[in-house]
């Protein structure tokens, strides 16, 4: 069985191989390309299951690590390695399961797309990069794959490159992530220079004995910039809603379930650094909590089904980051896992709707879908219930763990904020459901249920969304926490009042949505008008995109124009000026060559006098 561990490099390698083969040779045969891609991730899933069996059969501290030198010189070496421990095993399972289901689902969703083969090539490079990131044993390697998942995301957001909106969204995603990566890279450079290594376990030892708090705060905050970009935390969250321009399965896989969770994973992986500085932890908790609330408030008023889910993703990522910040690493990872299942379910179900309605995404143009699309509707409802935190679905357990940890660690304000977000989440999700799936608009008339290749993944994910939470629930003695842990972690005792309050809040949210959008007891158009200012603020996402656009236009492009002017007028002006001067000196001085012996004698005489004066000056200087 241990041989399986030494084979784990195959998991990221196969998708990369599939990418290369499709890109170079197979792109003319879309079906073979898709089969190869699915096969590569399928093998990865089987290996991940085997690895998990080994890891979870062992002790909590189980680790397997191997590495090869990748870049080596005196004072700097970067490895490509494998670090298999319970944290890795969980992520491997999550990524391979969701990726496999999404790729199968895409067979139906993308079946008539002319770029079918490239789509699977991009899916493969994403899977390879993401899995490479997951198994990394050092910061150099994780940065390499971190940027490569950024590339895959860029390629897949811009997959329908003929649309200007897709083109712009892809660019925005990459550049926003680069800003985060700038900080992340500086953090890595600091680590390399201070500790002389990038390996996690070596760093863990070095950081533990390191006393310079200021440096630790700086380094950990810089490293945190990476997750802020990748996991779309405020203020770098702007790219994620726009990323919905990509095909919906991509949104499910990359922009909801796996890639955006990479930031959370990084915090968990390098928890020893973050946990070593309480100041950074507080910043992480506040940014996470703020993003959770901020994004949930925007989701309340959006009309595009994918955008609602996108803001919901932002909000849930904020939840996970907040969990990390309050020291509840296991709770954050637990929520990452359950969220991956129910959010990919929600996106794939939304994709099924969009597919059936010829790319309609406005929830107000849908309605009564539950009659025509029963599987899609009910799986979507299960996903929404899980997301809202209704017991005993998976989201309930993971959300409860986070709220419990926030309260137990003394972050009462964050606990209240988290509970409020839970209420808002239930409300906006069921607003969507009552309008799109049960509303009386005629939009859903021509809809039809999607083929089995799409509905079967939905059903599997729905089952996971229901049961996956049990592994971390008090019912199973918090088994998840037992494995995903760090030195000094504590687990507070289950608190029944927190469970009851959060469930009641979720039910209240659903009830309110039902009352407003199903029963129409309250006229929402009047609320909209009455609270016009607030509504506009939320509807326009707090105008943050507009503010950024203004800043870029005036500061970045303004500086660019200023620099160009300087280069053309000052630098090139000086160059051309010298050339002009040289030319004109030549023109002027050539008239001194006039052929008159008298004038030559005059020049000679002047020269002698100048030389004499110079010589005399020199003599006097020496004498003096």
């Amino acid at each position, binding site marked *: 069985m241990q041989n399986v561990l030494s084979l784990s490099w195959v998991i990221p390698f196969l998708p990369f191989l599939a990418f290369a083969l499709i890109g170079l040779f197979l792109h003319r045969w879309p079906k073979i390309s898709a089969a190869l891609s699915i096969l590569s991730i399928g093998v990865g899933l089987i290996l991940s299951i085997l690895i998990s069996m080994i890891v979870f059969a062992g002790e909590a501290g189980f680790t397997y690590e191997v590495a090869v030198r990748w*870049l080596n010189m005196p004072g700097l070496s970067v490895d490509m390695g494998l670090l298999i421990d319970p944290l890795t095993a969980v992520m491997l399972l999550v990524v391979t399961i969701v990726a496999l289901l999404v790729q199968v689902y895409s067979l139906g969703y993308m079946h008539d797309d002319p770029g079918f083969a490239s789509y699977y090539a991009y899916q493969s490079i994403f899977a390879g990069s993401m899995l490479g990131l997951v198994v990394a044993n050092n910061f150099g390697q994780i940065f390499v794959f971190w940027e490569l998942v950024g590339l895959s995301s860029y390629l897949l957001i811009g997959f329908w490159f003929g649309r200007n909106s897709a083109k712009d969204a892809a660019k925005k995603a990459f550049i926003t992530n680069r800003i985060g990566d700038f900080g992340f890279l500086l953090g890595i450079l600091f680590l390399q220079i201070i500790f002389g290594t990038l390996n996690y376990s070596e760093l863990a030892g070095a950081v533990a004995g390191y006393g310079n708090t200021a440096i630790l705060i700086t380094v950990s905050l810089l490293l945190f910039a990476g997750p802020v970009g990748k996991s779309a935390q405020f203020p770098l969250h702007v790219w994620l809603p726009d990323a919905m321009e990509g095909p919906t399965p991509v949104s499910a896989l990359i922009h909801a379930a796996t890639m955006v969770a990479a930031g959370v994973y990084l915090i968990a992986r390098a928890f020893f650094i973050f946990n070593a500085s309480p100041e950074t932890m507080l910043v992480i908790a506040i940014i996470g909590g703020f993003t959770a609330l901020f994004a949930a408030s925007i989701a309340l008023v959006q009309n595009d089904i994918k955008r609602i889910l996108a803001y919901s993703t932002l909000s849930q990522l904020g939840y996970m980051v907040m969990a990390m910040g309050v020291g509840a690493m296991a709770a954050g990872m637990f929520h990452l896992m359950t969220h991956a299942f129910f959010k990919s379910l929600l996106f794939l179900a939304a994709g099924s709707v969009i597919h059936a309605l010829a790319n309609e995404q406005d929830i107000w143009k849908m309605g009564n879908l539950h009659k025509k699309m029963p599987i899609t509707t009910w799986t979507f409802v299960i996903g929404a219930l899980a997301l809202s935190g209704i017991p005993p679905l998976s989201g309930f357990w993971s959300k409860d763990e986070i709220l419990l940890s926030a309260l137990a660690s003394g972050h009462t304000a964050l606990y209240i904020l988290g509970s409020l977000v839970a209420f808002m989440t239930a409300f906006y999700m069921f607003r969507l459901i009552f309008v799109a799936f049960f509303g009386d608009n005629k939009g859903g008339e021509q809809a039809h249920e999607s083929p089995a290749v799409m509905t079967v993944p939905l059903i599997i994910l729905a089952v996971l969304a229901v049961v996956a939470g049990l592994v971390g629930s008090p019912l199973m003695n918090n088994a998840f926490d037992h494995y995903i842990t760090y030195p000094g972690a504590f687990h507070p005792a289950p608190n029944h009042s927190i469970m009851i309050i959060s469930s009641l809040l979720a039910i209240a949210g659903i009830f309110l949505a039902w009352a407003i959008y199903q029963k129409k007891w309250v006229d929402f158009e009047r609320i909209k008008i009455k609270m016009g200012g607030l509504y506009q603020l939320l509807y326009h996402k707090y105008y943050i995109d507009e503010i950024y656009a203004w800043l870029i236009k005036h500061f970045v492009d303004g500086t660019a124009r200023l620099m160009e002017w300087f280069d053309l007028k000052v630098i090139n002006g000086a160059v051309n000026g010298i050339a002009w001067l040289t030319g004109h000196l030549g023109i002027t001085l050539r008239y001194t060559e006039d052929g008159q012996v008298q004038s030559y004698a005059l020049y000679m005489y002047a020269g002698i006098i100048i030389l004499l004066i110079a010589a005399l000056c020199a003599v006097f200087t020496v004498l003096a």
Partner: protein
Amino acid sequence: MNHLPILSITLFIPILGAILIMCLSANRQKAIKYIAAAATFVSLILSLLVFLNYDRAVGGMQFIEHIPWIADLGVSYALGVDGISIPLLLLTNLIGFSAVYASWNIKERVKEFFVLLLILITGVMGTFVTTDLFIFFLFYEVVVIPIYLLVIMFGSSKRVTKEYAGMKLTIYLLIGSAFLLVGLIALFVKSKALLGFPSMDIMTLAKINYPLAFQIFAYALMAVGFGTLLSMFPFHAWSPDGYAGAPTAVSMIHAGVLKKIGGYGLIRIGLFILPAGAKYIAPLIAVLAIFNVVYAAFICLSQKDLKYIVGYSSVSHMGYVLIGIAALNVISLNGAVMMMFAHGVMAALFFAMIGNLYEKSHTRNVSDFGGLAHQMPRLATGFMLAGLASLGLPGTVNFIGEFTIFVGAFSVYRVISIIAITGIILTAVYILRTLGDVLFGPRREEWDHLEDLQGPEMVPLIVLGTAILIGGILPFTVMDLINSGVGQIIAHIGTIQIGGIF
């Protein structure tokens, strides 16, 4: 070890090709192109053999050839390569071979074009394989003539005329070489006085302990001379105009390798022979390098012509090389050499793609294009690969260069490095804007007639693309070699404390 004078053969095969072409009638265009391709191919294979057969465990100068030439001046025809020169030799031939194919569609004055191109390739190669200062300078001067003729005969006039561009390029090269010449003469005179006999051998010159004042003086001259060649701010003005005016092959070779003679010279001649001078002036170079990186990157944002974007971008990337050279440690210098190689293949690929597009569409304005990936998917792949390499994406060799430079420089210049590293954001902005506007977006009918890359046009993409990816995925293949060369230079000069000028 190796009795065949492999370096001489590599060096002179293109000249042999040029002579053969001169014997042909001007209208045998096919034959001329095949000869050029064959000559550069042989050089490429030989330099690959040198790359593979160099004994990395032993290190030092290998494949040595030595023939005394002018005894009174201590000049000899001395060739030899080490870990620093081999990657640049290989780079020259990768680009030279690709440049021939990038010029495959030339119809006018084919004979003159390829003769000049082959002479140019030999000239550039010569500077990297010689260990004699005089020969180095000789080859450096050899490249000036073909460059000037190629630009004014085959160039294109946009923002500036091709005559202006050619003249600007040539005068800058000559001004640079004037500074160098003074520096070299000073070095010769001083070393003769100290040694008691004349020598132009770099190894011999490096063994002398020159007075500090002399080192500063001579290194300053070289910093201006080589700095101009490397488009160091504020001596960079030739670069964008020059590349924009030059024909594709010249842009490829100039941006790809010729420029790197500056960086190579600063390390091999400046730092190796005059370490104290290098250390004294290093902080100034580091400060100027920030201007290179940030200032040029900002200018890229406001450019509309593809060649100007890549031209300014190359000025920006040379800033990284300069910082690597200024930080003066093994890591940063490894990074600088790697970056020179990486930027070379990337810039050459970029110019090859731009050249191909310009040839077919007769415009280089970003705003004239849009959605080209619909009509030209292969060209789009080439553009994407070059662009992603340019923004230092992991998986491309450029990432290795940048990352290594950052690690090396960050330990020496903290603030300067942080400012310079913002370049990774700015580069992403201008590269992705450009790629997006040219390749993506709705299909534009007016470009439906453009044909995608095919046949010989694919060669630059395949050759340079492979180099970008192999270097990026298996960086140790190149880095171990560079490290053996840089390690010996650092061992020679010892650990040095940087500073003095400020």
